């Protein structure tokens, strides 16, 4: 820097000059932008919650499907003079010897009754023929094929039928898909709402700052240069609001995870601490949506001036 001459501004004055004021070139925020901050923050909060619920419900559905896939049940019908319990025990023994079966266990009649009891009651149970069931847990890495198990039972002269829970599995997978699509849909709707809000605000901002835009244009600023100012302004605002929204959603999930001890809730929405990582890109995504929208809207409006 050259040594200031006598005519130059004093050092204190010079040191107060800063390029920061010129970074945006647009006036600082007004009341409308405070409201916009709030709206974008809330939208980001909802988007984050939607994403977290999507991940948790997906995990729950996957867990249920995995559990169902890892187990099959055989209903054994006694032949000749043997009792149902004996036939079931024999079937369990045969199934246990098959490769890919981790455990095979005949379900005791008392346990089978206990399972049905909540639906049918004590009185009816006494007269009801209880099926002889064998629960088979499959090796999760190399599960035994249903056909191989049925062949083994047939070779041992055991009359049995297989329930591989496929009806339940399809139902759960279908429900999981619906939940996932719903969450993505909500996420998309919130994203588009953010874009619409920013687009509206950009129009208002451009109208409110028409004099600034005119002066910039008359100084030789291109439309892209002006659009970049709005882009920077709204991206920054959206990022700040998004950060706040993401933080609030993170706190909400943390409180839910710590405070809610209901087993049913944990089964339905098994949140994990690692899920909070999803929140990191959310403000960035919101800022990107805001920047792109502000740029496009500004360029379009300037083109029509």
């Amino acid at each position, binding site marked *: 820097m050259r040594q200031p001459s006598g005519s*130059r501004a004093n050092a204190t004055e*010079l040191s107060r000059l800063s390029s920061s004021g010129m970074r945006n070139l647009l*006036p600082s925020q007004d009341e409308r932008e405070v409201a916009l901050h709030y709206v974008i923050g809330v939208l980001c909060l909802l988007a984050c919650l939607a994403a977290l619920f999507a991940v948790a419900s997906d995990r729950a559905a996957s867990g249920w499907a995995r559990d169902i896939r890892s187990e099959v049940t055989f209903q054994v019908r006694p032949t000749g003079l043997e009792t149902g319990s004996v036939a079931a025990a024999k079937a369990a023994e045969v199934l246990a010897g098959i490769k890919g079966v981790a455990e095979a266990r005949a379900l005791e009649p008392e346990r089978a009754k206990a399972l049905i009891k909540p639906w049918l009651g004590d009185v009816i149970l006494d007269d009801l023929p209880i099926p002889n069931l064998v629960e088979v847990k499959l090796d999760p890495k190399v599960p035994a094929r249903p056909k191989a198990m049925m062949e083994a039972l047939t070779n041992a002269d055991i009359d049995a039928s297989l329930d591989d829970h496929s009806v339940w599995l399809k139902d759960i997978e279908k429900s999981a898909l619906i939940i996932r699509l719903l969450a993505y849909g909500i996420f998309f709707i919130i994203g588009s709402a953010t874009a619409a809000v920013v687009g509206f605000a950009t129009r208002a901002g451009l109208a409110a700052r028409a004099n600034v835009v005119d002066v910039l244009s008359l100084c030789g600023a291109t439309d892209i240069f002006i659009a970049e100012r709005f882009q920077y302004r709204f991206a920054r605002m959206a990022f700040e609001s998004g950060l706040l929204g993401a933080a609030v959603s993170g706190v909400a999930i943390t409180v839910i995870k710590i405070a809610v001890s209901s087993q049913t809730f944990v089964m339905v929405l098994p949140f994990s601490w690692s899920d909070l990582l999803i929140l990191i890109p959310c403000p960035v995504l919101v800022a990107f949506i805001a920047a792109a929208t502000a740029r496009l809207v500004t360029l379009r409006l300037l083109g029509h001036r």
Partner: protein
Amino acid sequence: MPDEVPETRVLNLIPAKVLTTDQARPKPQPQMKNNPDDNQGDAGGGSIVEFRNVSLGYGDGDRGPDEFILKSLNFQLPAGSFHFLTGPSGAGKTSLLKLIYLAQQPTLGSISLFGEAIHPNDRAQSAALRRRLGIVFQEFRLLEHLNVFDNAALPLVVHGQRFKDYREDVTELLSWVGLKHRLTAMPHILSGGEKQRLAIARAVVTRPTLILADEPTGNIDYAMGLRIMRLFLEMNRLGATVLIATHDESLVRASGMPVLELKDGELYRRDLTARGGQG
């Protein structure tokens, strides 16, 4: 009172990065073409501004010629010329300047700037041409949210220059126009004269090829008016073409520069009795 900084120093400190080849040319004598046919072959060379049968009317396009505010103007401003633009209030001086700085489109006719025919809807062309202009607006058009320094430096920011590269030059220019003590002040606390000087500093900070000033001395005292005029004359001496719209007859007389007068929508040279716009 302004600080005493030699004019030559001020003009040297105006960033040279934005100097154009037009400014390197020897300064031609000011001239005015009355006949559009005389302009042939001039547009790409010595002519900075060229109006060909330019009329401007407000309202719908069905108005008759009598209602045009500017009527079939034909003239050129050669590179390096210096002109005053005078005329009574409402004569269309500001409108003529607006046509040149592309804030308005002619109703009829065509305009060339720096040898380029202006395409009304080509915003990229407008931006590129405006970068070679320095404009002093009658109503200043300062940005109220930027301080004095940032307002003066605005065209440089638009030109893509960095703060550290222009800080010292802009500071010195502001010292020269007497705003050294106001660098960080906001425009709303400035007096009319200070705003005027700031607007002038902003207009010349890029060392433009063409300077357009609308009543640049309207709000300042005579001494400062002369000082500002010296700045314009020095810019002109270095090659800038200057067109100043003014009511200030004393300033016009003191400078001795040629005068274009707008009257009843037509353009005259002050010392001629023939109509300038009709060829």
